[in-house]
């Protein structure tokens, strides 16, 4: 479960002064649900998700993830979160197994439990053929699988995906989409950000449209269609965003 209340992040820039990257965002994301954060580049998606993963600290407001406050108990939050983004790369000089084991140990797993989980995940994701291969020698698809294994090793209740399919080919992107669905089936709370409409239409139970750091609209696809009298999600998005759109906004 994720609950945010007036989540705000301010950055200071020498040239532009104070930037409100995220401005009073409040939403709830329930277990067994996929919440899609839809927005243009620089709308505030990544900053919101980084705050939920406690990589950044909110300037105002708060968020409760799995019952833990992101400001008060960031380490407990991270122990319950699996975070995957295009910016979460792998250690090039570790092999796939070492990479996953490292994060298992950091999550407090004992060696016996860790071995069991690694074997299980590697079989499930069909990774045994490259478990001893260094990460810098893996193909993009193999890297994505290793990243997924890294996020799953501690069996987190909340999964946060920040534009997980950005720059991936169709087949690798499908693996990720399949994995996100599987997370929902397993009853996990899933939030993911994207600007790809088709992904949102396919996956999301709840859609939040974000622009200029503000959550401008929220609801299921059906609710949004009814509210904005448009069938196509892209048209709905444009209707919501255009009055607030300022190109080249801060992320």
């Amino acid at each position, binding site marked *: 479960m994720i609950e945010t209340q007036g989540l705000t992040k301010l950055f200071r820039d020498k040239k532009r002064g104070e930037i409100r990257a995220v401005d009073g965002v409040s939403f709830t994301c329930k277990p067994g649900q996929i919440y899609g954060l839809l927005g243009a580049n620089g709308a505030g998606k990544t900053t919101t998700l980084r705050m939920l993963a406690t990589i950044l600290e909110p300037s105002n407001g708060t968020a409760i993830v799995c019952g833990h406050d992101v400001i008060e108990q960031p380490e407990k939050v991270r122990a319950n979160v699996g975070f995957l983004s295009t*910016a979460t790369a792998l250690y090039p000089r570790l092999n796939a197994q070492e990479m996953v084991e490292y994060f298992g140990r950091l999550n407090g797993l004992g060696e016996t439990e860790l071995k069991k989980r690694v074997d299980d995940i590697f079989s499930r994701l069909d990774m045994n053929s490259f478990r001893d291969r260094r990460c810098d020698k893996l193909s993009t698809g193999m890297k994505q699988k290793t990243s997924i294994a890294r996020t799953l090793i501690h069996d987190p209740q909340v999964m946060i995906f920040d534009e997980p399919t950005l720059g991936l080919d169709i087949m690798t992107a499908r693996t990720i989409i399949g994995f996100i669905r599987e997370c929902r089936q397993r009853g996990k709370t899933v939030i993911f950000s994207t600007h790809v409409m088709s992904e949102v239409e396919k996956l999301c139970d709840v859609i939040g449209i974000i622009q200029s750091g503000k959550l401008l609209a929220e609801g299921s696809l059906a609710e949004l269609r009814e509210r904005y009298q448009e069938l196509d999600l892209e048209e709905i998005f444009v209707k919501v965003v255009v009055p607030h759109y300022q190109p080249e906004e801060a992320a």
Partner: protein
Amino acid sequence: MSLRNVGIVYRKELTEALRDRRTLISTILVPLFLFPVLSVGFGALAVKLVGKAKEEVPKIVILGGEDSPQVLEGLRKLDKIEIVPTKSGWKSQIVEREARAAVEIPQDFQADIQSQKVDLVKIYNFQGDIKSEFATEKIEAYLNDYHDSVVKDRLAAKNLPVSALKPFEVKKENVAPPEKVSGAAFGGIIGYMVILLCMTGAMYPAMDLTAGEKERGTMETILSSPISRLHLVLGKFFLVLTAALGTAALSVLSMSVSFSMLSKYALAGGGGKAAAAELLLKLGPKTVASLFLMALPLAVLFAAALMTIALFAKTYKEAQSYLTPMTIVVVIPAIASMLPGVELTPKLALIPILNVSLLCKELVTGTYHWNYIAIIFLSTCVYAAAALFLAVKMFQREDVLFRS
């Protein structure tokens, strides 16, 4: 504080470092081979070149002296030189290295000696050219002998003993043990090398574990794990410290082997026991342990300071441009300690790097000023603690970690 988490990060960083060619070169290969190449290699080469230069029979030009046949004959008889014909441009003969030196015998030189008139004999050479200097020495030696024989004859003519011109003799004698003599000669260099290699050993891992991690995109990955930033920075810091100390340890080891090899070479090469004693530098276990103890807080200071600075950079290249000038900051005080006459004072004992460098010089000569050792150790510990505190603080700053 969870030592387990610090240990997990340290082990992972160590695994990666041992698989990284650049780290292995800067931490292991450079310190292991730098000293043998610098001291034994260049030392042996220098001994060989000097020996070869000494063996050469130099070509000498004689200017004038036609009216001083005795002097000319004496010079011609010297089997250590070869007289070459005089050309009008004899200076260019020396400059072009066709002749090594020229000796100018003044007109009526022998007659002037007889009449006890003082003349000036000039030797022309190529200053700084070792072969020309050796040729000059040979001519000087002959002229000095001739000078002494004239003096002897004059004293004999007046029935005076040679001692009349030599009422007493002066002799200097060294009382310092050979290791202290060689320590005074090499102590400064040892301190300088240990400090410099401590720094260069820490430099690469410090960049790789901070800016390198940002550049590769793994910083966000690790920050999304439950490990606290304090544990993360400590795990990384201990790896950088290991690299700094490992480099220093290997450099001391390589240095002691190199010096003992150099002393053996000097013996075998006919340098004589005196040269060997001067070169022989025995770094006993006590000296090595003391050097390490003093290098420890300095290594902590380097590791923490370099990590703090490198963390500001977004890329490895940017980190390099920040850290390369740091080498000069370290080298200058280390070199200053090698200047003649610079010794430890209470004020200098508080200047970081310079104090340890000066102390290393003393430790190598076997001198232990405990009050200075205490001041330097404690002050360096304070600087090191401040740098480590700053490094931890930097890892908690979002604007540094996610600088755009």
